[in-house]
């Protein structure tokens, strides 16, 4: 069971998306897990074949419990991205698969659905290449797909029925699906559905976009919704009482877990607080200018500048970015900025936007929108929950002028941005009215002190004065 946040102690496997024998790819979603906060999709960071599912659906297990075993992959040709079918990845084939050459695969069984940081995941990519040809796999005429690929197709809105396979024996490959998805991602924004299915989905709280339609023209019909509802019922609210979490219960649990985490933070972390007022006239002017030229869909919000500036500043002052655990601070190379998003039903979640320091503003904007949307829908990925290296609290940019936050352990810093206000501001001996924001820093005294903290905040202010360079 991946730790999807320091406050997470256990989780319930809602649904397995893979079965033993399925070949999986790094980045595939293999399971859905329910936590107090949200339903989370568990990613895998390995290429390989699912050996055994260790935790059945509906069971609640503590963080750290192995969920499944992953065997080394059977690949037809190393480096040649041809997607094997589920039949190819059947267990019977697996024993012929392991390549003996690398340490990673010399260990045929790995409890490796465990989530790890991107760095650690990346570290495991090497064996990937080393995996080599296995036994010759006879091409099969079947177009059978692994559930993983089906899931991928579902997520991308690709109708498998209309897809022509390019793999051996016309098997549909991952590439086929991704290719099919590319041009149609916009076009398939609308899900075909019958009116009754729509009504049912609304009543049952099911997102039609997630339901596979079996009606005419691929339309979602009532039966599809009912099927989805049954599945849903088997997940979040199955007969087993352990996993039965009503919305109210979940809200209470979320409140409790936030409370526990924050209490732990306040107990363990010696916070110190700094604040500074940042002149945003350049940033807002630049933003207005940039947005003037842009269609609505691609306009930027101020938060993007704030996040980017924070990430770049964190690069400069590494004591703000990383994890403190077991009495040791491990700075992080990557800057994954947790974005505090308040849930309208109550509570706050701070999932990560990855590698903010390296993202362009447009890309960051896109990711931010996506993240907010998925947070609201409760479809966050495990990595997003587990690996922020620093948190920014500003999206609640209404109302108050300053935010003094509590650090999310094991992180070591939290930056708060208050409301942008027009304020008298003296510069070069002249007083003017400018849009300003109060930036605050809550930081861990075990890792840094006020001097470094001040440097960090100052750097943010400096970056925001030159928004065009962000």
């Amino acid at each position: 069971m991946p730790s999807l946040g320091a406050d997470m102690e256990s989780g319930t496997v809602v649904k397995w998306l893979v079965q033993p024998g399925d070949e999986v790819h790094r980045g595939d979603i293999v399971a859905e897990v329910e936590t107090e906060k949200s339903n989370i999709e568990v990613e895998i960071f390995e290429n390989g074949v699912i050996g055994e599912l260790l935790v059945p659906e509906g069971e609640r297990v503590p963080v750290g419990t192995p969920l499944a075993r992953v065997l080394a992959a059977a690949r037809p040709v190393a480096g040649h991205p041809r997607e094997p079918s589920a039949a190819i990845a059947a267990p019977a084939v697996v024993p012929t698969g392991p390549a003996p050459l690398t340490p990673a695969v010399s260990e045929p069984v790995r409890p490796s659905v465990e989530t790890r940081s991107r760095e650690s995941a990346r570290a495991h990519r090497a064996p990937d290449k080393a995996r080599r040809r296995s036994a010759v796999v006879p091409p099969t005429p079947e177009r059978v797909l692994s559930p993983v690929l089906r899931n991928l197709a579902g997520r991308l809105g690709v109708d498998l029925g209309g897809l022509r396979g390019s793999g051996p024996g016309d098997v549909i490959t991952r590439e086929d699906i991704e290719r099919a998805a590319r041009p149609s991602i916009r076009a398939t924004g609308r899900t075909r559905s019958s009116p009754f299915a729509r009504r049912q989905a609304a009543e049952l709280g099911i997102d039609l976009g997630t339901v596979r339609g079996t009606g005419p023209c691929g339309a979602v019909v009532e039966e599809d919704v009912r099927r989805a509802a049954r599945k849903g019922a088997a997940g979040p609210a199955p007969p087993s009482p352990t996993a039965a979490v009503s919305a109210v219960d979940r809200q209470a649990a979320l409140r409790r877990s936030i409370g526990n985490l924050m209490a732990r933070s306040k107990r363990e972390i010696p916070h110190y607080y700094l604040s500074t007022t940042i002149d945003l006239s350049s940033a807002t002017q630049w933003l207005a200018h940039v947005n003037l030229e842009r269609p609505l869909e691609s306009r930027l919000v101020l938060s993007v500048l704030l996040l980017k500036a924070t990430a770049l500043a964190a690069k400069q002052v590494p004591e703000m970015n990383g994890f403190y655990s077991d009495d040791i601070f491990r700075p992080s190379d990557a800057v994954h900025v947790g974005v505090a998003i308040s849930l309208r039903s109550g509570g706050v979640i701070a999932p990560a936007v990855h590698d903010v320091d390296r993202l362009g503003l447009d890309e960051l904007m896109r990711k931010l929108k996506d993240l907010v949307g998925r947070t609201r829908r409760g479809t966050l990925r495990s990595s997003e929950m587990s690996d922020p290296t620093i948190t920014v609290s500003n999206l609640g940019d209404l109302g108050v002028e300053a935010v003094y936050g509590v650090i999310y352990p094991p992180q070591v810093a939290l930056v708060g941005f208050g409301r942008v206000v027009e304020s008298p501001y003296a510069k070069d001996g002249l007083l003017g009215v400018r849009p300003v924001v109060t930036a605050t820093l809550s930081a861990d005294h075990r890792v840094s002190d006020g001097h470094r903290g001040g440097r960090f905040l100052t750097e943010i202010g400096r970056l925001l004065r030159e928004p065009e360079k962000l």
Partner: protein
Amino acid sequence: MTDIVALDVIRRTIHEIAPEADLDEVGPDDTLRESLDLDSIDFLNFVVGLHEKTGMDIPERDYSHLFTLAGCVSYLSSAAQA
């Protein structure tokens, strides 16, 4: 666009970005973002949603017209007549 149509467009858009929000509890002059707990991304999505449904181009300088329900209605209905 009549006020009723405008209100419907607003209602549907709000529903998309914040299905749990109850527009009935928002007074005409209440601030939408505060009443419905919309963050800046939500608000942008709201504006995008209005754009998609009406085809209206909504420049950023007009955002201030969209802060309240009454403002949205009059903005949509008057702009559509222009």
